[in-house]
C-alpha cells in the first residue's frame, strides 16, 4: 500500500483517477499512521482502502469500480467511508451495471463517481442493470454493456427517470448510507412487477386466506 507516485514527500495529485482493485481482498495490514493520510476509515475490506487510495491521489474526479458488497455493507469503517464521501458532497453518482459483464463470474459491479471539487447536495443513482446484451467471446459467454450514451446523458442531466434518481444526502443518511441503487431508483424488475400488477385486480391476502 505504499504509493508509487510521490513528489517531494507528498502524494502526487492527478487530474483524474480510474481505479479497479482486486475484489474482496483482505487488507489486514493497513498502516496505523499512514504518513500520506489516505485511510481515514480503516476497513478490513480492500475495496475501501483502494477507493481511499484512489481519492487521495486525485485533485478532483475519480471513478472506482466496486462490487455490490461495498454498497450495502454496514460495518463501522465502511459506513464511515460512505458517510464521509456523501457528507462532503464528493460522491457524485452511483451507477449499477448489469451482471455478467466480467468473464467467469456473475458478480455485479458498480461505478462510484467522485468529484472532490464540487459539493453535491444530492447523489445520483442510475440503475443500468438491464443495459446489456449477450456476447460470446473466445468460448466465454458474458454480457456487453449497452446504451453508454444514454447512461452518460442521464449522468450529465441528472434527470429523474425510471432508472435514475437524484437523492438528497439526508435520504442517504436515513438509509444508513446503504448505497444499493434499488433503495433509491426503481429498477426494472420492480417496474415490470408493478406494471403487471396494475393490469389485474388484486385483493389483500387476508381477504382470501386465513393467516395463522
Amino acid at each position, binding site marked *: 500500500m*505504499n504509493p*508509487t*507516485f510521490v513528489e517531494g514527500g507528498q502524494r502526487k495529485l*492527478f*487530474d*483524474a*483517477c*480510474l*481505479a*479497479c*482493485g*482486486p*475484489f*474482496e*481482498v*483482505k487488507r*489486514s495490514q493497513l498502516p496505523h499512521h499512514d504518513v500520506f493520510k489516505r485511510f481515514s476509515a480503516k476497513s478490513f475490506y480492500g475495496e475501501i482502502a*483502494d477507493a481511499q*487510495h*484512489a481519492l487521495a*491521489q*486525485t485533485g478532483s*474526479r475519480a*471513478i472506482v*469500480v466496486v462490487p455490490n458488497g461495498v454498497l450495502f455493507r454496514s460495518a463501522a469503517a465502511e459506513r464511515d467511508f460512505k458517510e464521509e464521501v456523501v457528507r462532503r458532497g464528493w460522491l457524485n*453518482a452511483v*451507477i449499477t*451495471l448489469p451482471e455478467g*459483464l*466480467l*468473464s467467469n*463470474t456473475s*458478480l455485479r*459491479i458498480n*461505478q462510484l*463517481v467522485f468529484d472532490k471539487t464540487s459539493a453535491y447536495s444530492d447523489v445520483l443513482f442510475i440503475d443500468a442493470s438491464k443495459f446489456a446484451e449477450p456476447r460470446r467471446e*473466445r468460448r466465454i459467454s*458474458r454480457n*456487453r*454493456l449497452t446504451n*453508454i450514451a444514454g*447512461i*452518460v446523458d442521464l*449522468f450529465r442531466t441528472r434527470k429523474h427517470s425510471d432508472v435514475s434518481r437524484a437523492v438528497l444526502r439526508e435520504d442517504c443518511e436515513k438509509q444508513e448510507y446503504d448505497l444499493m441503487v434499488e433503495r433509491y431508483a426503481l429498477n426494472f424488475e420492480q417496474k415490470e412487477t408493478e406494471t403487471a400488477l396494475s393490469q389485474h385486480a388484486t385483493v389483500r391476502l387476508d381477504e382470501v386466506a386465513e393467516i395463522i
Partner: protein
Amino acid sequence: MAGVCQTLLDCYGLISGHPFELDMHTFKTSEASTHVTWELENLRVETFEGEKVRFEDLISATALPGGHCLTRALSDIRGAIRCPVDTGFYSFRCVETLRQFFAESRDDKARSWAKLRNRLQVERSYIDLGEALLFEDDSSVRYIPQIPAEVAELAVELLDLSENDSVYCPFSASLQFALAAAKRPTIAHWNLASVCPYWVALRCFVIRTWMSPSPTQ
C-alpha cells in the same frame, strides 16, 4: 503468421508493459486487400522507467540463435502481466526458460544456474522468489476483475477528460481504464508495479540476457 505477429506484440508488450494477446481475424496480403485492425499507434501509456530497450533490437534477438527461448520468455511475461494471480506460475516458467538459454547441455543444470546468476547479477534468493510466488497461497484475493472495454469507455466518458489531463489508473485491474484513457489526449499512468512486482524483475532479466553485453565480453 499468427505466431510471428504474437511475438511482435509480445516484444511491444515487454516495452510498454501491456499483455497484448493477438486475436487475428483478417490480414493483408499482396493478392487480396483485406486488412488487419490495429490500435497500437494510439497507445500513450506511460509505464516504467529504468532499463531501456529498443523494439527493433528485441525483434532482431528473436531471430538469433537461442531466440526461441526469448520468444517463450516473452510469452510467459505476457501471462504474468495479464493474470496477476498466476504471476508466480509464469515467472517460474520464464526463469526456467532463461536457465535453459544458458545451458550447454541437458545435464548442465548447476552450471547453467550459476551462469544465469552471473549474467543477470542477481542472488539465488531473488531467483527463488519466483518459485515462492508460485506456491504462495494468497487466498485473501477472491477475484481480480478484468474490466471490459465498454465499461472503461463509459468511465472515461463520465470523467469528461480534457486535453492533457493526467489520469491515474492504479491496481492491475485498471489496465483497461489506462488503455481507454490513453485513446484520449490525456497522459495515463498505469501503476502495475505495486501489484505484481516480480514480472518487472523478469523484464529486467530478459533485457539483461538478450540486450545487454555479457560481463565477460
